[in-house]
């Protein structure tokens, strides 16, 4: 059992007691409630503890001694009613104050307590004993208080009485007691001035306002979501259009290339008998060697040709590659460009492949295609061509994926491409991978 008394009740009782020139007594009003604490620990599933808590809210002092009992200690019910009036049901105990006496219940107190327990119908009536001790020279005075529950067994009679917030509240939390405020004045003031703070339902106005703000924000957010969705759809549509146009462009280019080729072949067929041109062979060889990369094998570095092809050649080859490789490609089948180190990213080699291919083509996901990589053979397995990257950089922006991870990585690549000089550079996409893994480019 635990008991608590509010600070003001306690001080009020002390005040009444200290100012009396004899013993003093009165009744304690409050409530008793049961608290059940269920605790779960490693050793037990659950233990339920039942605690009876006595809360003393108020007190009713008696004006004089023997006001409700006679010399023999017999309690008079009428006098009791007269003293307590309509608060009788709130009585949970009574108290007595006597100076310079031992902290024990006296003979008469015990007799009265038994009778009060029966008359008031409170089985666990408590008794609070105040004792005032002064030293001989009146230099030190001590007020001692003990709470008894005499109806229990003799060895378990004293209960600790706590006074909440009596102590260092800077270190402990200031406890709000559950004592109901029964003051009429308080109720009147709140009623008069409450309209500024409370609305008709008794809820504080500020709370409603905040709720309104919150709801407005939510609505706005919903609207924005819708807009985003729409814009995304538009973008997707545009993307599709772009892809289509690109395809058409490729087609046209191929046709043009074929025509030119025919023309060129036709022209050179006449001149061919005189001297074979290295360029053609070379180009053919290179073309052939490049075409040989169609199989899904590890990319081989082609040998460094004695004559490095010119930019235009590269571009044409590139286009050729693109054209050859683009036909069987579908946007959906291309691997998504992913940075090295991202969870789903393919091996560095395939990444390089993917990069090379994805750069020029539209968005798509799917298995890695066994396509040719426009290697330049710089030996570090980095991306084939900064040129390619850069050239495709503009296109890259349009190739933005909707997926976050890809777009972010893609942006990394784009930004890196923009940073690097147009010449072949030691691109290290691995360094920019979002999850910080440094691999790929180092393991070639």
């Amino acid at each position, binding site marked *: 059992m635990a008991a608590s008394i509010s600070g003001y009740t306690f001080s009020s009782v002390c005040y009444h007691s200290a100012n009396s020139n004899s013993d003093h007594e009165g009744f304690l009003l409050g409530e008793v409630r049961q608290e059940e604490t269920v605790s779960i620990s490693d050793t037990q599933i659950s233990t339920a503890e039942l605690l009876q808590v006595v809360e003393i809210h108020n007190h009713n002092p008696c004006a004089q001694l023997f006001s409700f009992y006679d*010399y023999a200690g017999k309690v008079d019910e009428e006098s009791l009613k007269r003293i307590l009036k309509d608060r009788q049901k709130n009585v949970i105990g009574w108290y007595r104050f006597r*100076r310079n006496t031992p902290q024990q219940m006296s003979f008469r107190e015990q*007799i009265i307590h038994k009778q009060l327990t029966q008359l008031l119908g409170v089985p666990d009536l408590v008794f609070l004993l105040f004792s005032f001790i002064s030293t001989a020279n009146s230099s030190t005075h001590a007020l001692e208080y003990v709470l008894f529950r005499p109806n229990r067994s003799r060895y378990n009679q004293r209960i600790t009485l706590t006074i909440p917030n009596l102590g260092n509240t800077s270190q402990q939390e200031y406890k709000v007691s559950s004592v109901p405020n029964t003051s009429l004045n308080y109720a009147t003031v709140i009623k008069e001035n409450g309209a500024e703070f409370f609305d008709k339902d008794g809820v504080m106005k500020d709370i409603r306002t905040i709720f309104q703000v919150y709801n407005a924000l939510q609505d706005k957010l919903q609207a924005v979501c819708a807009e985003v969705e729409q814009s995304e759809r538009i973008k997707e549509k545009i993307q599709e259009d772009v892809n289509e146009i690109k395809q058409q462009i490729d087609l046209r280019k191929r046709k043009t290339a074929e025509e030119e080729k025919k023309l060129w072949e036709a022209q050179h067929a006449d001149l061919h008998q005189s001297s074979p041109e290295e360029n053609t062979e070379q180009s053919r060889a290179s073309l052939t060697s490049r075409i040989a990369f169609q199989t899904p094998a590890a990319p081989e570095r082609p040998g460094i040709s004695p004559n490095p092809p010119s930019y235009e050649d590269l571009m044409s080859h590139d286009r050729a590659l693109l054209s050859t490789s683009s036909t069987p490609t579908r946007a959906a089948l291309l691997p998504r460009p992913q940075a090295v180190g991202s969870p789903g990213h393919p091996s560095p080699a395939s990444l390089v492949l993917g990069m090379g291919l994805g750069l020029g083509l539209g968005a798509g996901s799917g298995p890695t295609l066994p396509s040719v990589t426009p290697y330049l053979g710089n030996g570090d397995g980095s991306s084939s061509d900064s040129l390619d990257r850069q050239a495709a950089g503009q296109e890259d922006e349009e190739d933005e994926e909707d997926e976050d991870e890809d777009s972010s990585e893609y942006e990394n690549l784009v930004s890196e491409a923009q940073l690097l000089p147009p010449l072949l550079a030691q691109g290290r996409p691995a360094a920019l991978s979002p999850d910080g893994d440094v691999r790929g480019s180092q393991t070639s």
Partner: protein
Amino acid sequence: MNNMSPEVALHRISPELRPLLCSVVRNGRVGLDATNFLRVTDLKTGCTTLTPGPCCDRFKLHIPYAGETLKWDIIFNARYPELPPDFIFGEDAEFIPEPSELPHLVRWDAGDPECLLQLVKELIQQYHHYQCQRLRDSSRLLFEYDSLLEEPSYGRNMEVYAGRKNSWTGEFSARFLLKLPVDFSNIPVYLLKGLGRGKGNEHGLTPRTPTHRTARVAESGLMSVCAPIINRIKDTTLDPGEDMALLSVSFEDAEATQVFPKLYLSPSIEHALGGTSALHIPAFPSGGCLIDYVPQVCQLLTNKVQYVIQGYHKRREYIAAFLSHFGMGVVEYDAEGFTKLTLLLMLKDFCFLVHVDLPLYFPRDQPTLTFQSVYHFTSSGQLYSQVQKAYPYSPRWDGNEMAKRAKAYFKSFIPQFQEGAFANGKL
């Protein structure tokens, strides 16, 4: 403030409560042990500290009961002196007397000075009942109690203290304090007097101011010297109270295997019966019970008393016989206790003194005769004397016979003595 004299207590208590306390400390004797007074300690006040004194209204009362001292707090209110007090019964927290059994509480009258004392007596009675109830925890002790209760001579004068039950071992102890129904009224008054002044002689009796009477020895050449008669001064400053004997029997366990009896005699009785030797009582027989033991002790005590009384009378008879035989030869004798007699005799012109010392248990014990020469001194300056204990004597002789035989003995012994005196003493 533990050893507070009653006067100090009365001085400090609130004036309205003073008469009540007065009767308690001055006349207050409750219980069997009337030699122990009620004591008041720890006088405190229930008023504020600013109240001018004297305003004490609460105190501790020490009450002797069954060999224990009960310390009860009595709480008044000085501002309302007409109200009855409240009590805290010390360690006996379970003692809650029924108010209807306390008429002086129910009809408390603050104007009656005896009210508090009467209330305390009623409380003691209730306390006694409470203790007897507690005996029910032990069937053996309850049997003891019941058997004693049946005997009215014991049952009505009994205090029982059922001690603390040792909750660990379940041991129970109890003490019975019984007032023994022994009649001390026939003990000669003289024997009861003489307390606190001077040292007792070997008999434990202290004649403080001896009575002198002289008479002339009229017979056969023995001279006597007259001496004035001095009346005995009675001792009135100490009031030893009622003469009583209390038997305290402590049972240290419920099975009565450890029993310790003790006899308490009021000081005058103890004195009369010969000091601490009178307190020897037989040990409690193992397996015995109080209803057999107590009468045994009673009988023993009664016998002793009888013996002492008889001894007194016998001594008186003895002295009377000597007086009549030696008449003028008696120098002085103890006229109250009849324990001493001095004769001045002359045989063949040789004067000598005879001191007769009668023991407490005369005639069982033989009187001591001390012969003293009036002429001769020893080297230490005393009169030459000789003590004789072994002379013809029989306890069955009456006083007259003893006087006659003593005379004959003197006649036979004196020549020897005379020679010895001349030989060893100097004039």
